């Protein structure tokens, strides 16, 4: 960028220079015009130049124009057009070479300028597009700014509204509170007013009552009276005592005395009850204590025998205490020391009991442990196995936890960030890809193995087929022989030849090819040449697809082939085999237990045989 920036700078400067020239020059100079023309456009230049020159120079003003040009050129630093004259008087002569040089230089300059101009133009274009782009960007940003500003304003508005609402609610709350306060005040004031009124009314009522009382009681109402036939005796049999001023005080005192007596009695009664309750509680406590002692002492014999136990001392203490307490069975002595002793001893006992119980707990757990140990001794191996199993389980659990954690994290990640999730997903994808790759390679390997297996299989099948064929032929020959044996010798011979030809018609046809071609092609041709025969064979002699079954015939074949010439075709071997029929029959029998699948395997013979046979070839 910097490069063309500088270039544009120069261009611009030259341009501006030109412009300044154009503007500053008052008279119409050709150069200025030219430059102007240059500025306008470069395409119509030639035409313009031509017209311009025609206008500039005429027959009449050649001299002038030359001199003008010379002047101009010299001012621009070109060498003079005129020849360097020795004398002043001599007229300056136009130096053609210089003119040409000048012209050339001018042209070069022109070209340079054009180049520069082009550069400048392209730069200008570039800049223009940049400018456009920037303007676009600017516009977009401006728009964004506008929208965000609008949004902000909207948010501000909302905020303001919410604040307003909040303020209103606060106001309402305050109002409500005020209302509550006011109502409370009203209630309180009403209550006080009510109470006040009530009091006033009550006072009035009391006044009225008083007045009524006076009126009713002071009237000496004759009606208010009691008519009794005769007064009855008191319930307690005493005579009614008259109240006199003197006795009033004593009466009062007596009443007081009685009252206090009653109160005292009540308190005494309650105290007695409490004492009884206390005594009972104490009894219960004592009993409990006794039971505790009896419970604890025999069991604590052992720890005491140990003697180093800290509890031992406590126990002895406690037993002393117990003895003491047993001695002073006066439980009614509820003085403070006794109480303290009691509480202390109870606390101690309690502590002992607690420790004892804890010990028991420990023992129980120990016993449990011991039990386990015994088991361990009995079957350490089992234990180890168990631990191993457990460890395995732990491992599995750990793995599970890990995967779960991963999943969880993944989930979490999805929850918190989409980018990270995509990244993570990518990671996982990669991982998966790798895993897949691994699997793929494994698969491939497996496939290869399978292929190998199949090859060996087919090879064996081929052999089997071949051998079958051989066997068939053998059988045929054997039958023939049989037949010949049955007939006369001559007839037999002729018959044999005929039969032979009839039997091996196909194979005879094939034989030349077999001989000419390499051996691997043979099965193909064979299957092509005698399909009926092979199928029949397959039916009659089901091939064995299993490798174990194949091994046998294969070994047989190899044996067979080693015995025979390598390139011998089954058709040929047949002749040899006639004599060895018994052996061949034997191996065919061995191959028989195979299943019908041989038919199927036969189909793929052609394709796989080439590899298989190759191995055999060397």
């Amino acid at each position, binding site marked *: 960028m910097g490069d063309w920036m500088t270039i544009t700078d120069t261009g611009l400067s030259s341009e501006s220079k030109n412009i300044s020239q154009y503007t500053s020059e008052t008279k119409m100079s050709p150069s200025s015009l030219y430059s102007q023309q240059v500025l306008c456009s470069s395409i119509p230049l030639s035409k313009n130049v031509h017209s311009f020159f025609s206008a500039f120079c005429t027959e009449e003003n050649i001299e002038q124009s030359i001199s003008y040009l010379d002047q101009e050129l010299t001012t621009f630093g070109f060498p003079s057009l005129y020849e360097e004259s020795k004398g002043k008087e001599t007229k300056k002569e136009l130096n053609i070479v210089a003119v040409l040089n000048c012209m050339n230089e001018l042209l070069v300059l022109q070209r340079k300028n054009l180049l520069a101009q082009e550069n400048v133009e392209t730069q200008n274009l570039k800049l223009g597009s940049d400018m456009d782009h920037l303007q676009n960007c600017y516009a977009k940003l401006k728009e964004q700014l506008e929208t965000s500003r609008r949004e902000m304003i909207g948010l501000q508005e909302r905020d303001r509204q919410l604040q307003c609402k909040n303020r209103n609610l606060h106001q309402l709350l305050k109002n409500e509170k005020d209302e509550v306060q006011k109502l409370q005040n009203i209630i309180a004031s009403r209550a006080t007013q009510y109470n006040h009124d*009530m*009091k006033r009314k*009550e*006072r009035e009522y*009391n006044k009225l*009552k008083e007045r*009524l*009382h006076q009126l*009713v*009681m002071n*009237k000496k*109402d*004759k*009606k*208010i*009276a*009691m*008519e*009794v*036939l*005769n*007064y*009855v*005796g*008191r*319930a*307690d049999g005493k005579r*009614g*005592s008259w*109240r006199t001023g003197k006795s009033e005080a004593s*009466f*009062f005192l007596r*009443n*007081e005395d*009685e*009252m*206090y007596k*009653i*109160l005292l009695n*009540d308190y005494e009664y309650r105290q007695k009850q409490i004492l009884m309750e206390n005594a009972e509680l104490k009894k219960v406590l004592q009993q409990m204590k006794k039971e505790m002692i009896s419970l604890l002492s025999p069991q604590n014999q052992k720890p005491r025998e140990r003697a180093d136990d800290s509890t031992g001392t406590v126990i002895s203490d406690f037993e002393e205490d117990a003895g003491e307490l047993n001695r002073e069975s006066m439980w009614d002595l509820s003085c403070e020391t006794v109480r303290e002793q009691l509480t202390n001893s109870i606390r101690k006992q309690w502590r002992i009991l607690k420790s004892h119980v804890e010990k028991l707990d420990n023992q129980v757990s120990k016993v449990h442990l011991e039990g386990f140990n015994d088991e361990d001794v009995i079957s350490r191996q089992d234990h180890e196995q168990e631990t191993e199993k457990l460890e395995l389980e732990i491992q599995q659990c750990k793995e599970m936890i890990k995967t779960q954690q991963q999943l969880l994290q993944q989930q979490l990640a999805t929850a918190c960030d989409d980018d990270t999730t995509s990244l993570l997903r990518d990671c996982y994808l990669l991982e998966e890809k790798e895993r897949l790759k691994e699997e793929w390679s494994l698969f491939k390997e497996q496939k290869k193995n399978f292929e190998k297996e199949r090859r060996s299989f087919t090879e064996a099948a081929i052999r089997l087929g071949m051998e079958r064929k051989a066997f068939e032929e053998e059988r045929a020959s054997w039958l023939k022989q049989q037949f010949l044996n049955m007939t006369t010798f001559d007839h037999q011979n002729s018959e044999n030849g005929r039969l032979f030809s009839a039997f091996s018609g196909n194979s005879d046809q094939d034989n030349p090819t077999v001989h000419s071609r390499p051996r691997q092609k043979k099965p193909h041709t064979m299957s092509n040449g005698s399909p009926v025969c092979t199928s029949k064979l397959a039916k009659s002699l089901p091939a064995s697809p299993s490798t174990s079954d194949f091994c046998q015939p294969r070994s047989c074949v190899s044996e067979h082939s080693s015995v025979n010439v390598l390139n011998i075709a089954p058709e040929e071997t047949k002749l040899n085999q006639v004599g060895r029929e018994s052996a061949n029959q034997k191996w065919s029998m061995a191959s028989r237990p195979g299943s019908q699948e041989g038919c199927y395997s036969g189909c793929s013979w052609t394709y796989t045989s080439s590899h298989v046979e190759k191995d055999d070839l060397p």
Partner: protein
Amino acid sequence: MNFSEVFKLSSQLCKFSPDGKYLASCVQYRLVVRDVDTLQILQLYTCLDQIQHVEWSADSRFILCAMYKRGLVQVWSLEQPEWHCKIDEGSAGLVASCWSPDGRHVLNTTEFHLRITVWSLCTKSVSYIKYPKACQQGISFSRDGRYLALAERRDCKDYVSIFVCSDWQLLRHFDADTQDLAGIEWAPNGCVLAAWDTCLEYKILLYSLDGRLLSAYCAYEWSLGIKSVAWSPSSQFLAVGSYDGKVRVLNHVTWKVITEFGHPATISDPKIVVYKEAEKSLQRALGRPACPPPRAAESKYEIASVPVSLQTVKPAADRANPRVGVGALAFSSDNYFLATRNDNVPNAVWIWDIQKLRLFAVLEQLSPVRAFQWDPQQPRLAICTGGSKVYVWSPAGCVSVQVPGEGDFQVLSLCWHLNGDSLALLSKDHFCLCFLETEAGVHTAFRPPDHCT
């Protein structure tokens, strides 16, 4: 269960004598005294007007008959039929009359609660107690009859005066820290006086005999407060029923609440036995065509399977004295049980186990419970609902008994005889006695709860 014949009665005035030998009943202006065992009329007294109140003296020797309208009290002696005593309050009027515990004084409260006049039957003396407070339960005699506690109102303040009954001397006089004292009651041991405030404020005060404030208890504020109060016979517990439908039981040592019995409308605890009264089908009526048709159907109790929801009434919020809260409560004589009635569940009686401090049983009747009373001898509760049946509950079970007789005998009220053998059933204008079986008979009568009749 046997029933006596039906006797006439007016104003539900029928009382057993405190010694349990006699039964006084009023028919208009006549007072009839019968022997409890034979129901023979022993005495017949004629008063000057229709009797409005009747009361036995503590020694069962005198009977007081009050005729408030006339301002008259007539006293009769059982031993001396010819002896008579008439107390006329004259223009002062009469609103209440009662015996003093010694049975030799009559306390008359004049109209407008101007004063209480103490008339002596032994001497000519008359004492006046001024400023008695007109309230729910303003007079309380201690059980031993030694003291009288009286609520007073002076200068818009509540006071409590304790009098010695033997000579009517004022023993203590102290102001109660209440807004508007509603009632006072002595503990059965006579050493503690409970005083409670009006229903506008939940406040219960406990005073010692010598006027010291032992404790004050307030369960809540602002809402309607105490509706009923009951002491346990051992003075150990004070049960306070309030308008919030709860009973709070205070103990006598710290005077603090030891438990709170709510009265929920639904009972879901399977340990609680809920007896539900159910009408018996009238198949027996077919066999007895002569049976009068207006007779109410017999009923029996069924054990309802929990959860049970009890029938509640919605109280009118705009009325005074709303039918809510615990309006009645009573301890059994052996202190083991507490029976309560929540007024907005009017058909139910709750029976609480005080030893375990939990609900023991609930009885739901077909109609609102009018009254219930504990047997004075054993934990046995008699209930009436204003119908022709009387219901008896005991821990062993529950029975519903039809009151036999001509027409419909609507049991409005009942009261136990002292020894718990018989029960007086009062209707609007009749009464009869109901004799419960003796110990041996009771066991056969009370079947186990799951076979209750």
